[in-house]
């Protein structure tokens, strides 16, 4: 077993070189490179966590904005409906008023026309009486040679016309 047979001759060399090379490994690789590698991994993990948190926050903000937008839209829609209803109401009122005015004007004109009609028929009646009485006087004069008093003839005609 060379490990024991050569022990006295080689132990110093073995220990020396083991210390040299393991020392190099520890100080240059273990202390030099490994912390950097660990830091890289830690940074990456941190960045991933941060990015995820940022994405989550952005999503929450987007959802809140959407909710707010929905509320605004609903409110605006309600406002618009109210506006339309009010306009409809006003329009109805205005048209009713104008219809009423027009109806009143028409009534007034109809009443005036009736009055004029009545007046016309009255004057026409008057005219007929006059014409009839004159006609009666002329008829009596030419047929019977009688001379009638105009007033008496008018009274007679009036009596006949009105029964």
């Amino acid at each position: 077993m060379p490990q024991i047979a050569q022990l006295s001759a080689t132990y110093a060399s073995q220990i020396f070189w083991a210390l040299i090379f393991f020392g190099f490994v520890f100080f240059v690789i273990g202390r030099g490179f490994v912390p950097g590698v660990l830091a890289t991994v830690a940074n990456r993990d941190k960045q991933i966590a941060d990015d995820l948190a940022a994405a989550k926050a952005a999503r929450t903000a987007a959802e809140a904005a959407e909710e707010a937008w929905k509320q605004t839209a609903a409110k605006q829609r309600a406002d618009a409906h109210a506006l339309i209803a009010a306009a409809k109401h006003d329009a109805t009122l205005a048209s009713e008023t104008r219809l009423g005015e027009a109806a009143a004007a028409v009534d007034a004109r109809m009443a005036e026309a009736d009055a004029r009609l009545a007046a016309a028929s009255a004057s026409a009646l008057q005219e007929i009486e006059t014409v009839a009485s004159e006609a009666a006087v002329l008829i009596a004069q030419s047929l019977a040679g009688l001379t009638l008093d105009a007033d008496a003839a008018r009274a007679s005609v009036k009596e006949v016309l009105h029964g």
Partner: protein
Amino acid sequence: MAEQGKVDPMHQFMIEPLFGTDHLTLGGYNIAFTNSALWMLITTVALFVFVAGGSKKQLVPGRWQMAVESLTGFIDNLLAANVGPAGKKYVPYIFSLFSFILFANVLGLLPLGLVGVHPFTATSHFTVTGVLAVLSFAIVLIVGFKRHGLHFFSLFVPHGTPGWLLWLIPFIELISFLVRPFSLALRLFVAMMAGHVLLEVLSSFVIASTNSGFLWGTVVGLPSFLLMIAICALEILVAGIQAYVFALLTSLYLNDAENLH
């Protein structure tokens, strides 16, 4: 013929000085640059290339960076699970420990014999695993006494110890505590050595039986060869598991030192 087929399963663990450095000394100690040192150097270089190539620090990692990050993340999780938040500062040490052992184990298994190079498994020597185990144990002791002072000795009196056993339990706990560096070092060294010896012995069966003729080659050589293939897969698994066990036990001991019981 018999001499040709003879395989010494222990030869692979021989330490040989390279590049004429046989008599290189430091403070009276021989520090020859051996094949063992060469393979630790190769382990270090391979690990350096792997980690350096993967620490580009890009936000979106490539395949290589992903591989390195998986390895560091694995150690990070191991320490977080076993030691808790206080374990973060041991990540460089446990990472170095785990990857150094893993790379050394796997490099020692490479089938480089096919191209005439003989891989050497540095972790199959308790002089190397012992260094790592003593380092881990020393860190546990330093951390324990630094954080808890003499209160660290309460480690030897687990919660719920009955009063009438107080004379025995601390003694047993002390022994188990002191055995830790040895168990750490020996476990790795034995596991590595056993696997390599087994493969070597089976390969000697294959060679010797095939040289003895077709019949023996079929009856002994072929099953041995099939077994070798299976054991190669097992050894790759063991290479990973032993590195993991070393790192896991060290982190458990560090947990004792950080949090006591």
